[in-house]
C-alpha cells in the first residue's frame, strides 16, 4: 500500500480540483472537464504504451484520433441510399482496384530480384493504378457529392449504434498503424517522429478533402448518442421526481407554488445536462478502467518485461532471440488502436465530426506533454498526466486572468498594456504548457509519477 501512496495522493488532489471547479464555476463545466480528462487519459495511455513500454516516438496521434472520429461517422450515420445508387458500385470497384494494386506490388516485391527493373515495375503498377482509380472514381465522386450537398453529399455510414464505433475506431487506427509501421518503424527515433507527424498530416488532408467519405470540412453534425437527449429527459416523470428529490432542500425554501414550479423546471434543465454528462462520464470511466487493468496486467506480464528489455537494450534483446521488429510493430498497432478508441469517444461525446479542427498542437503535442508530465512508462502516471494537463489547459485562461489582474492591479483599467494582456489571455495556456513541460523535463525527467519496476 505504501508504494501507492503518492499515486493515491496525486489522484485525490486531481479529483479535489475538479470538485472545486464544480463548486465555484458550475457542475456542467466540471463534468465537461472530467469527460475530456478521461478521453485525454485514453489517448495518453495509447501514447504511453508506445513511448513508455517500447521507446517508440509516435507524433501521429492526431491522425489516429481523426480516424477514430471517422469511424464514429461511418458506423453511426444511416446510409444515403441515393448516393449508393449513383456511385456506390464505382466506389466498391475502387476498393477492389486498391486491393489489386497492393497485392500486385507485394507479388513483385516477393518474386523479383532486387534491381532497377523491380523499382520500375512497382512504380508503373502504382502510377497505372492511380490513373485507373482517378478514371473510375471521378464521375462517381462527382455524382455522390451532388446529392443534397447541403445535407448529405456523402455515402453515409452503416446506421449502427455509435458505441460500436469505439471498436471500429480501434481497428481503423490499428490498420493505419500497421501500414505506417511497415513503412517507417525501421527509421531512427527522430526520423520516426518527423515521418509520423507528416503522415498524420496526410491523413487529415485526405479526410478534409474527400467529401464523399465524411463530408470533409462541411462537417457531420447531429450524430446519434449512446445516452438520452436532454429534451427527452426533461419531459420524463422519473427524472423530474429525481431532480425534485435531489433539490428538495432548496425547493422547500421557496413558498409560492408557482415560483416553486418555475424553480423546479430550472433545476430540471440544469439537471438534464449534468445527467447526460454523467452518463458519458460513466461510459468513459468503464473504458479507462478496462484499459488500465489490461495495460497494467500487460506491463507486468512476461510480454511487458520483454518490451522493457527491448526498449532498454535492443541489441541484447535481439541476441536473446526476441523479434524486435515484430514486437515494435505490434506495440505500435496496439498503442495507435487505443488512440483510435479515444478519437471515437471524443466524436461521440461532441456529437459532431469536424475535420478542420484537427491540429497537431492540440492533438499531438499536447498529448505528448501529458505523457511526459504524467510519467512515461507508468500507466497511472499517464492517466494522471492526461487529467492534470487537460485541467490546466482549460483552466489556464481563468488562472492567467487572475494573475494578470493581480500583477497589474496598480495600473488603471484603461491602460493599453493591461488591456492587451487581458485580450491575449487565451494564449497563456501555451505558455503554461511549455513552461510546465520544460520544468518537468529539467527537474523531474521521469514525470510526476515515475515508472516503477518491482521484480517479483
Amino acid at each position, binding site marked *: 500500500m505504501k508504494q501507492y501512496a503518492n499515486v493515491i495522493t496525486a489522484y485525490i488532489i486531481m479529483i479535489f480540483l475538479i470538485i472545486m471547479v464544480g463548486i465555484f464555476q458550475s457542475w456542467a463545466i466540471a463534468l465537461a472537464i472530467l469527460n475530456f480528462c478521461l478521453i485525454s487519459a485514453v489517448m495518453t495511455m495509447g501514447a504511453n504504451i508506445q513511448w513508455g513500454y517500447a521507446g517508440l516516438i509516435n507524433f501521429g496521434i492526431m491522425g489516429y484520433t481523426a480516424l477514430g472520429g471517422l469511424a464514429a461517422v461511418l458506423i453511426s450515420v444511416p446510409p444515403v441510399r441515393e448516393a449508393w445508387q449513383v456511385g456506390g458500385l464505382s466506389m466498391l470497384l475502387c476498393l477492389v482496384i486498391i486491393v489489386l494494386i497492393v497485392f500486385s506490388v507485394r507479388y513483385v516485391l516477393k518474386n523479383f530480384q532486387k534491381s532497377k527493373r523491380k523499382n520500375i515495375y512497382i512504380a508503373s503498377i502504382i502510377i497505372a493504378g492511380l490513373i485507373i482509380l482517378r478514371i473510375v472514381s471521378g464521375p462517381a465522386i462527382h455524382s455522390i457529392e451532388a446529392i443534397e450537398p447541403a445535407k448529405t453529399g456523402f455515402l453515409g455510414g452503416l446506421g449502427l449504434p455509435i458505441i460500436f464505433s469505439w471498436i471500429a475506431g480501434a481497428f481503423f487506427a490499428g490498420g493505419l498503424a500497421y501500414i505506417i509501421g511497415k513503412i517507417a518503424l525501421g527509421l531512427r527515433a527522430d526520423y520516426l517522429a518527423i515521418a509520423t507527424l507528416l503522415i498524420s498530416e496526410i491523413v487529415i488532408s485526405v479526410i478534409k478533402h474527400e467529401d464523399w467519405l465524411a463530408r470533409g470540412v462541411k462537417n457531420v453534425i447531429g450524430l446519434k448518442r449512446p445516452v438520452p437527449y436532454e429534451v427527452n429527459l426533461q419531459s420524463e416523470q422519473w427524472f423530474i421526481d429525481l431532480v425534485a428529490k435531489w433539490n428538495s432542500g432548496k425547493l422547500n425554501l421557496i413558498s409560492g407554488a408557482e415560483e416553486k414550479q418555475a424553480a423546479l423546471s430550472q433545476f430540471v434543465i440544469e439537471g438534464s445536462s449534468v445527467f447526460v454528462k454523467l452518463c458519458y462520464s460513466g461510459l468513459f470511466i468503464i473504458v479507462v478502467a478496462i484499459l488500465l487493468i489490461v495495460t497494467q496486467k500487460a506491463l507486468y506480464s512476461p510480454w511487458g518485461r520483454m518490451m522493457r528489455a527491448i526498449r532498454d537494450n535492443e541489441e541484447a534483446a535481439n541476441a536473446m532471440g526476441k523479434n524486435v521488429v515484430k514486437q515494435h510493430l505490434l506495440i505500435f498497432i496496439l498503442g495507435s488502436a487505443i488512440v483510435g478508441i479515444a478519437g471515437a469517444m471524443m466524436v461521440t461525446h461532441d456529437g459532431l465530426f469536424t475535420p478542420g479542427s484537427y491540429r497537431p498542437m492540440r492533438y499531438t503535442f499536447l498529448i505528448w506533454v501529458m505523457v511526459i508530465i504524467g510519467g512515461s512508462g507508468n500507466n497511472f502516471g499517464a492517466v494522471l498526466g492526461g487529467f492534470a494537463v487537460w485541467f490546466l489547459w482549460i483552466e489556464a485562461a481563468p488562472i492567467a486572468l487572475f494573475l494578470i489582474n493581480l500583477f497589474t492591479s496598480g495600473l488603471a483599467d484603461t491602460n493599453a498594456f493591461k488591456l492587451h494582456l487581458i485580450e491575449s489571455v487565451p494564449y497563456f495556456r501555451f505558455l503554461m504548457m511549455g513552461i510546465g*513541460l520544460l520544468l518537468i*523535463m*529539467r527537474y523531474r525527467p521521469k514525470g510526476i509519477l515515475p515508472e516503477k519496476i518491482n521484480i517479483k
Partner: protein
Amino acid sequence: MDFVNAIILLLNYIFVPALAYGSQLALGAIFVTLIYGILRFANFATGDMMSFGTMVAILFTWYFQSLGINLGVLPTALLAIPFAILFMIFYMLTIDKFVFSYYRMKKSPPVMLAMVSIGVMFVTQAVVRIIIGPFDRRFFDGERFILKANEFKEMTGLNEGLTIKSTQVLTIIITIIVVSILFWFLNQTKTGKSMRAYSDNEDLALLSGIDPKRVVMITWMIAGILATIGGVLYGLDKSFKPFTYFNNMLPIFAAAIVGGIGNPFGAFLGGYVIAFSEIFLTYAYKKFFMYILPESMEPDSLIQLLSTDYKFAVSFSILVIVLLFRPSGIFKGKVL
C-alpha cells in the same frame, strides 16, 4: 507563338512562385540541418523561432514607419532585418543557455532534446501570440510589382502575362547572397571548418582543440540569422500569421530530410525540390495543353494530377518515398 505563350504560362504560374517559395523553404531547411548536424537534435521549434524573428522585424518595421523612415521602392522591413537579427541572436543564446545547454552537458539522447524543443515551441508560440496576436499581418510597403501582367502583354504582344512581384525577386536575391556567404563561411574560414569538423566527429574535433562552446554559440547565431531572414522573406511574400509559420515547419523538415539531414547544400536544394514538386503536381495544366496541342485534341478536364488541397501532402509523400529508398537523403547526410 502558342509555344511561347505556353512557356510564359508555366513561368508565371509555376517557375517564379516555386523559386521564391523554394528559397524560403531552403533557408529554413538549412537552419534545421545546422541544428541537427551540430547540436544533434530535430528542432521542433523551427517554425515558431522563425515566426518570433519575423515578429521582431515587424515591430521594428512599425517603429520605423512611425518615424517616417522608409526605403522608397524597397520594403521597410529590409531595414528592420539587422535589428531583428541582433534580437534573435540574443534570444537564441538565452534559450540555449537556460534550456538546451543543460541537456547537452548531460549528454542526453537526441530524443530528449527534441522533446525539450517542443517545450520551447510552446513557449515561443505563446510569446508571439501574446505580443502580436494570432491574426494575419501584412507589413509590406514599397513597390509591389516589378513586372505587371498587362505591361508584359503590351511589351511583347503575347496572350499570356508574366507577373513578377518585387518580393519574389528580393527573396531569390537575398537567399542567394545569404547562402553563398554561409557556404563560403563553412568551407573557407577556420571557424566554419571547425564547425564542420565538430559535426563530423565530435570527439576528434575536441581532441584537436576545437572549443565546443564557441562552435555551439556560432551555430545558434547562424540559426538566428537564417530564421529571421527566412521568416521575414516569407512574411513579405505572403503574410505573417503565427499558425502558418508553425505549419511551415513540416515542409521545411521534409526539405531538410530529402536533402540529407546534416548537409546544408542538400537542404538548400531540398527546399527547391519540395517547392517545385508541390506546385508541379497540383497545377492544372489545361491551359498549357490548349496552347501546345492542336484544337482537335484540346482536353476537357483540368488535367490536374492532384487537387490543390493536397499541396502539403505532396511534400510529405516525397519525404516518405525518400525515407524508404534513401534514408540518408538524396545527397548523403551527416557531413556538414
